[in-house]
């Protein structure tokens, strides 16, 4: 049996460095500046985020009297650092290239390399388009068979707000939507005291995917509040933009899309390659998350899984 030789290993690292550099160059070309982040976070300061992330996935480290955790997410680190001393009128374009850490159920710690950007302080729609456009451009560069799923989280938020549910009920409901579990969703909704029109809208949610123009029409036939309508209008605007770029056959709208980290409020997206079974890119808008750190700032970004991109991107 032949082992992986040092020479081969170095070749692999060389290729990988090349890929990271290419992507960093694209970020810098678009005016993003590099930001170095600490690998440690204080558990208490990010309580609101970590409540949403499963506790067993967080890698805990004990330092003195504080419980520290290894960074699980770049966006949270950046927001926590910058928002408390934010200056009005500031516009920032940042990128990072570092690791996040996750613990798996069997106690193994995974180190995941992420490259990503954050666009802070710019008018929402302008920043959404730029960030989304850049994600499309990068995905397309390494595999033209890519697909990107898009939604606007205000749609589900609007719908859930209209239902007056408890925290546990909301969590369960989101889990069912996230798993596209229609059968249990029907069952669960029957146990809730919901007005007929809202229940219909909820049961219709899993069908709201595919051609945006058609699904907007479909959504409008059911219960729709201003928050939900806003989500649809923003998506229509984004569609015009991606059509113009010529990416329409790569973009799939799916209004039942949910993200692992629940801080998004507005545009959300996940990008995939045909032979990979992990998300290559995921991102979105998270203004209301910045509010938890003192001020509501326009904020949008995405992160790329560098390992998966390297393996499947044909680079």
């Amino acid at each position, binding site marked *: 049996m032949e082992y992986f030789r040092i020479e081969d290993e170095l070749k692999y690292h060389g290729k990988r460095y090349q890929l990271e550099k290419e992507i960093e160059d694209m970020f810098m070309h678009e005016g993003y500046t590099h930001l170095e982040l600490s690998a440690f976070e204080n558990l208490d300061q990010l309580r609101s985020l970590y409540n949403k992330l499963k506790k067993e996935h967080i890698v805990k480290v004990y330092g003195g009297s504080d419980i520290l955790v290894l960074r699980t997410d770049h966006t949270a680190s950046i927001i926590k650092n910058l928002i408390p001393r934010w200056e009005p009128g500031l516009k920032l374009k940042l990128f990072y290239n570092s690791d996040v850490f996750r613990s798996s159920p069997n106690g193994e710690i995974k180190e995941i390399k992420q490259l990503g950007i954050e666009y802070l302080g710019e008018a929402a729609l302008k920043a959404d388009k730029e960030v989304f456009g850049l994600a499309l451009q990068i995905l397309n560069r390494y595999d033209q068979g890519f697909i990107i799923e898009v939604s606007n989280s205000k749609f589900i938020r609007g719908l859930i707000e209209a239902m007056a549910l408890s925290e546990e009920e909301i969590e369960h409901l989101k889990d069912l939507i996230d*798993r*596209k579990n*229609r059968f249990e969703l029907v069952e669960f909704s029957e146990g809730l005291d919901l007005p007929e029109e809202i229940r219909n809208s909820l049961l219709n949610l899993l069908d709201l995917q595919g051609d945006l123009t058609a699904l907007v029409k479909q959504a409008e036939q059911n219960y729709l509040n201003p928050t939900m309508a806003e989500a649809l209008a923003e998506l229509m605007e984004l569609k015009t933009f991606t059509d113009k770029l010529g990416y329409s056959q790569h973009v799939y709208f799916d209004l039942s899309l949910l993200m692992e980290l629940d801080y998004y409020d507005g545009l959300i997206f996940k990008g*995939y390659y045909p032979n990979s*079974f992990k998300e290559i890119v995921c991102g979105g808008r998270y203004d209301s998350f910045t509010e938890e750190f003192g001020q509501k700032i326009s904020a949008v970004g995405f992160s790329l899984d560098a390992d998966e991109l390297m393996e499947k991107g044909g680079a």
Partner: protein
Amino acid sequence: MDYLKIALAKGRIGKEASKLFKGIGLCDSLDPDSRKLIFKDEKNKISFTYVKSSDVITYVQNGVADLGVVGKDEILERETDLYELYDLGFGKCKFAIAGIENQKLYAKDQVLKVATKYPKVTKKYFAARNQKIKVIKLNGSVELAPLVGLADVIVDLVETGSTLKANGLNVIEEMFPISARLICNRVSYRFKYQLIAQLLAELKEMEEG
């Protein structure tokens, strides 16, 4: 065009699933009793693989299979990141707590000992009602545990209850029902959406017709 790859759990669920898929005109050669593990339907571009029921999720999660047929019990016991697209309606049974005659679920001065093949399901169920328990994980013949004094009660899947009865155990509390589910890899769902949507429509038509 790529094949749509479906992983089926060996055993009872796999047999029911093969009947169902043949019923909608797919893969006539599908034979759960054969030693063959892979069956291909060239015409409809679908392939079926028989794997151990606890491996179906692993196959689908890693994208080796696009879809899988597996009991809800497996889904609940594992950490999964999948779509659950359809309740296939067969493989019906219940999770239940069982024990010997007059066994109580509460004792003031003791922590209840529960033997089960499903520690995650068990912990979650008792945690939801704030009861502290001690879980003893077994891999089979769970019914023995209360008889030999290993545990006070068991949590297990109950279909007819005849295995329990044969061992002198009774259902103390029914927890929730279980059935076979069609699960789907998240990325496959996007890339093979047309094929999957068509399959779902056919299953639905069959159920309603």
